[in-house]
C-alpha cells in the first residue's frame, strides 16, 4: 500500500503532463542554454597545440578513407549479391596462395598507411614536444607546483626569488597565471585521490597522482584567459573542479609576479608550518 502511495505521484505526473512535458523539456531547455554552440576544441593556445590538430586531422582523413572503403565493400554485396532465384554464391574458402598473399599484403599495407605513418609522427611529437620537458634550471622556465585535492587546484609558483619554499611563493587556488612564450613546467601531486590537470586550449593533460610527482609542461603562445579542468574522476564534485588559466604578456607578467610575490610575503606566516607544502625539484 505504501509502495502504491509512493508510486502514485509519479503516475500523476504521467497523467497531467504525459509525454509532451519531458520531451519538450529535454529538447528545449538545454538547446537554449547553449547560446553559442561549439563543435571543436577551439584555437590551440600552446606552441605544441598545432600538433594535436595536425595529427588529429591526418588520422581523420586516413580513417575516413579506410572506413569509406569498409562501408563500400559492405554496401556492394548488400546491393548486388542479395539472394534471388537462380543466384548462387561463389564458392571460395580463400585458401589459395593468392588469397593468403592478398590478405597479408592488404593488412600490412593498411598497417603501414594507417598506423605506422601516424606512429612515426606521434613519436616525433612526443620527443619534440609533449615529453620534452624543459630544464627546470633554465631561468626561462616558469615552474609551477600543483597540489590537487578534492576538489580544487592549489598552485604554487616560486615568486620573484625563483625559489620554492620561501615567503614570496605565489599560492593560488583554482587560478594560475603564467607568462606568454615561456615554457611552463609543472610538478604535480595530490593530497587525496587521482586527478588530472587538463588544459584544453593548451592541449595538455596529465594525471596528478597522490604519492608521486608527475611532470608535464606547455608553452603558451596566446595571451588571455583559459580553462583548467580535471580529467580524472575524483569524487562526486569532479565536474566542479575547474579553474582559470591566465596567460599574460611577458612585461605585464613580470609586474604581476612582483606584485603577487609582495602580497604573498605580506600574507606569509612563518610559524604556520602546516601551511607550507613546497618540495624539491628533482630532475
Amino acid at each position, binding site marked *: 500500500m505504501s509502495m502504491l502511495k509512493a508510486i502514485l505521484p509519479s503516475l500523476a505526473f504521467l497523467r497531467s503532463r504525459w509525454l509532451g512535458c519531458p520531451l519538450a523539456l529535454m529538447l528545449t531547455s538545454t538547446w537554449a542554454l547553449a547560446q553559442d554552440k561549439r563543435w571543436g576544441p577551439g584555437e590551440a593556445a600552446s606552441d605544441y597545440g598545432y600538433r594535436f590538430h595536425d595529427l588529429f586531422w591526418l588520422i581523420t582523413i586516413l580513417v575516413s578513407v579506410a572506413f569509406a572503403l569498409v562501408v563500400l565493400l559492405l554496401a556492394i554485396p548488400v546491393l548486388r549479391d542479395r539472394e534471388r532465384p537462380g543466384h548462387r554464391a561463389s564458392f571460395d574458402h580463400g585458401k589459395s596462395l593468392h588469397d593468403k598473399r592478398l590478405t597479408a599484403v592488404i593488412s600490412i599495407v593498411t598497417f603501414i598507411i594507417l598506423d605506422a605513418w601516424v606512429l612515426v609522427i606521434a613519436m616525433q611529437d612526443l620527443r619534440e614536444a609533449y615529453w620534452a620537458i624543459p630544464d627546470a634550471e633554465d631561468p626561462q622556465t616558469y615552474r609551477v607546483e600543483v*597540489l590537487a*585535492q*578534492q*576538489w*580544487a587546484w*592549489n598552485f604554487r609558483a616560486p615568486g620573484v626569488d625563483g625559489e620554492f619554499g620561501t615567503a614570496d611563493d605565489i*599560492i593560488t*587556488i*583554482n*587560478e594560475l597565471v603564467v607568462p606568454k612564450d615561456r615554457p611552463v613546467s609543472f610538478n604535480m601531486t595530490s*593530497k*587525496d585521490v587521482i586527478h588530472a590537470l587538463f588544459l584544453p586550449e593548451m592541449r595538455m593533460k596529465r594525471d596528478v597522482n597522490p604519492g608521486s610527482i608527475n611532470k608535464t609542461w606547455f608553452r603558451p603562445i596566446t595571451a588571455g584567459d583559459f580553462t583548467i579542468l580535471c580529467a580524472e574522476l575524483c*569524487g*562526486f*564534485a569532479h565536474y*566542479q573542479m575547474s579553474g582559470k588559466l*591566465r596567460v*599574460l604578456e611577458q612585461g*605585464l607578467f613580470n*609586474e*604581476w609576479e612582483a*606584485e603577487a610575490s*609582495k*602580497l604573498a610575503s*605580506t*600574507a*606569509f*606566516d612563518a*610559524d*604556520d608550518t*602546516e*601551511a*607550507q*607544502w613546497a618540495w624539491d625539484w628533482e630532475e
Partner: protein
Amino acid sequence: MRGISWQGLAVSLGALGLLTSLQTSDDENPHARAPRGVSLVVTAGSWLRAPSADWFAKQAKSEPSRFTHDATAAGGVGGWVDSRGEYSLSEVEGEWAYWQWVSPERLTAGRRDFVQFCSSCHGLDGDGYGRSAQHLRPTPRSFQQNKFKFTKVIADLPSDEALMTLIKRGLAGTPMLPWDLSDVQLLDIIQYIKSLSPEESGWRDVYSQVGDPVEVGEDPWADIKERAIARGREVYHGAASCHLCHPGYVTNEQLRVLRKDPEGTVYREDLTYPALKDSEYEVLGRATKVMPPDFTWHQLRAGITTADLFQTIASGIKGTAMPQWKGAIPDEDLWALAHYVEDLIVSYKDQPAVRGAFMKGLRASGDN
C-alpha cells in the same frame, strides 16, 4: 564432486557474510578516530561503520546534552538545541531558547551526507582538518569551533536558511564549491553539523543567539552611484579607516585630505598593501592568520554584488579582524562602502594592466 561444490558455496557465502558483518557493526562510536600519525589500520575500521538510528539512540542515552530524549515523541529519541525551532520549550534568563526535535532518521541521513560530501575537507568528526584540508589556507571551518565567516548574520550563529544559502552559493576561490544538493539533504547535513558543537558552545550553548542574515533593505544610493562611490571612498579612508587593514586606494596626499590630517602626516608603510591579521580559526590547535583582501586583487568569498558587500560589511566576518560595522556607522555609509568596494572590483580586478597602472600611480606619487 557435487558435495564439495556445495561446501565451497557455503564457505564463500560465509566469508561474504563475515566481510559484510565486519562493516555493519554499529557498536562503536563512528566518531572515534585514531590520533594523527597512526596508520590507516586503526582508522579504516571506524570509517566504515555507519551509524544507524540505533546508534543515535545509544548516543542519546550516553550524551544527554547532545541529544534530547523525549519519551512522548514517536521515535523516542531526537535532536538538540536549535534556537530557531518552532517548538519552544524553555525560558532562560528572559530569553527564549528554542528546541527543535529532529528525528534520528534525519540525523542519520545528515551524517551520511556529511561523511560523503563534507568530510574530505571538514574531517570525519567535523574538526575542519580532513585529508584534503592539509596545507589549505584559509582553513575549512571546524564545526567544533562553531564560527562561520560569511553567513552574514549579526548574531553568533546563522539560521538554517543562512547556512543553506552559503552552502548552495559556495565560497568563491576556495574548495568550498556551490554544492548541487537538494534542500532536504542540506537541511539534514546542517542538523548534523549542529550536533557537532562541543558542550556549551555553538548550538549547544543556551546563550548563543541565532540570527537571520542582515536585512538588505533599500539601497539609498541606487540612482546616484557616482556619489555613493565618492562617499564610500571618504568613509573607507576616513571614519571607518578600512585602510588600516585593507590597502588604501589613495596616495598619502589624498589620504591627508580625506582624513583632514595636517601636512606631513605619515601613514603606515605599504599603505597600498593589506596587513596580515590574526584570526580565531585554528588548525591542529594553532590559530592561523588571515589576509584582509585587496579588492583589486583577491577574490571575495561571499559575493560581489552591492547587496552582498553591504551584508558582509555590516555583519563583519566572524572570527577574523573584520568587525561588525552595523550600528557603528550609519547604514547609508555602509551602502556607500559597498558601492565603493564594488567599483574597485569592477574597475580593477582581473584586469592586470589597468590595475597595475592604477597601483603604480598611487605608489609613484610623491611621498609614498
